[in-house]
């Protein structure tokens, strides 16, 4: 009897020890998991900071062939964008553009460099050089991984009808919903543009940001955009002020001042792979009797339709653009086909036909590999 009791006692002891060991193992495993999670959290916290920066940007490589010219690997562009942020109250952003020209030289440009102080949920104060808020293409659609064709619409490049950038200050942001509609705005004051000759002798409105107004009155401008439905935006924009004319031939070095105005209207719509964009831009410079250079109006328009075919990663594009200045009128039809390796890695093939009022028609084929990062 005693042996039986002893056996039961020993069995119970061994069983309880085994159970205790199992419980200890589970606890140890849980503790190891907790330590691992805490270490990960510690590493994550160590990586946190109130300020930090990010390198973004885009790059593209171009090929062009066509009537009246040789076949060329015609462009290499690298545009790094630097973002620095302090908490939730400030961000600096700057974009450099590096391009190789036909002589093999590197062309650099500071596209924009501006800091924004976020004053509240609806307003940021931006100071520095910023992309022109007149219209949308120059401001938001020019990066090669965003632009759906390898080229810009005629009149929307540098020294065309669309202003490029401004040096000044802007108030901008999204507004509280009005009748359940979203909208956004920009109001800006900036240095005056220059009116005169380009390096090739053409008369231009040089509307790239400058660190001086040349004595002319500064620009006051604004853009307001409304989102009537989710994927749609309709914007209107304008600016007024003076341009300085540095072509004075009277023997004095003083600039001549001219009235200047700009206006734009833009439309964007995207739904289920369909993408529609259209924009009209106008810049106007008045006459001045002190100058032999006549003023005039520079206008540009484009309309573009693209459609991403679901599942095939293929996107056909059609664009019409029209650019008129006092010396010339140019129309362009461009048809393209894009292949999306990824949403930010795109191969483009396009055919363009230009009709000029001064010279014969020109056609070309363009190819481009573009990516954003």
């Amino acid at each position: 009897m005693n042996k039986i009791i002893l056996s039961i006692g020993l069995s119970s002891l061994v069983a309880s020890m085994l159970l205790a060991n199992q419980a200890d193992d589970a606890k140890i495993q849980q503790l190891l998991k907790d330590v691992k999670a805490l270490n990960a959290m510690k590493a994550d916290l160590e990586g946190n900071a109130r300020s930090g920066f990010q390198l973004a940007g885009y790059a593209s490589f171009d090929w062009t062939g066509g009537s009246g010219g040789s076949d060329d690997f015609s462009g290499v562009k690298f545009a790094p964008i630097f973002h620095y942020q302090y908490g939730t109250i400030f961000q600096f952003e700057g974009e450099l553009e590096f391009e190789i020209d036909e002589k093999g030289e590197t062309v650099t440009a500071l596209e924009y460099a501006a800091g924004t102080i976020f004053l509240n949920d609806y307003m940021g104060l931006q100071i520095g050089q910023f992309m022109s808020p007149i219209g949308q293409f120059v401001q938001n659609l020019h990066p090669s991984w965003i632009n759906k064709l390898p080229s810009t619409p005629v009149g929307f490049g540098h020294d065309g009808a669309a202003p490029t950038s401004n040096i000044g200050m802007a108030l901008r942001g999204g507004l509280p919903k009005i009748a359940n509609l979203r909208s956004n705005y920009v109001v800006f004051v900036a240095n005056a543009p220059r009116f005169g000759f380009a390096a090739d002798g053409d008369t231009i409105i040089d509307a790239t940001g400058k660190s001086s107004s040349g004595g002319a009155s500064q620009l006051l401008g604004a853009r307001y955009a409304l989102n009537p439905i989710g994927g749609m935006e309709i914007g209107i924009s304008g600016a007024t002020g003076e341009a300085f004319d540095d072509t004075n031939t009277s023997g004095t070095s003083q600039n001549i001042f001219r009235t200047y105005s700009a206006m734009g209207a833009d439309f964007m719509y995207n739904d289920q792979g369909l993408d529609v964009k259209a924009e009209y831009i106008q810049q106007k410079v008045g006459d001045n009797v002190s100058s032999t250079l006549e003023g005039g109006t520079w206008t540009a328009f484009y309309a573009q339709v693209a459609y991403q075919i679901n599942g095939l990663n293929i996107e056909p594009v059609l664009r019409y653009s029209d650019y008129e200045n006092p010396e010339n009128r140019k129309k362009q039809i461009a048809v393209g086909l894009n292949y999306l390796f990824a949403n930010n890695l795109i191969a483009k093939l396009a055919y363009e036909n230009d009709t000029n009022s001064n010279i014969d028609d020109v056609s070309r084929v363009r190819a481009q590999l573009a990516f954003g990062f």
Partner: protein
Amino acid sequence: MKKLLIIATLLSSMSLMANDVQPADTINGVQIWADTCTRCHNLREPAALSKRAWKYSMTHMRVRAGLTGQETRDVLAFILESKTDEDAK
């Protein structure tokens, strides 16, 4: 100078608008993300950038796309919630 005064007046009047910071709304965030981003460019899916890079990118897009602060926080919350371990592959 008059033009700067206009900016200063707007600045002082609108900067008085109080922030009404709400908890981030990921449902609103996904709607803004789908509607607003595609107007200009192809969608960058949450896996495209790291969590930290998304924070800076969304501030950049707040300026570029004219988002309110709350809309920016909503989109960022949706993106961060959508990220998975598979994003690293």
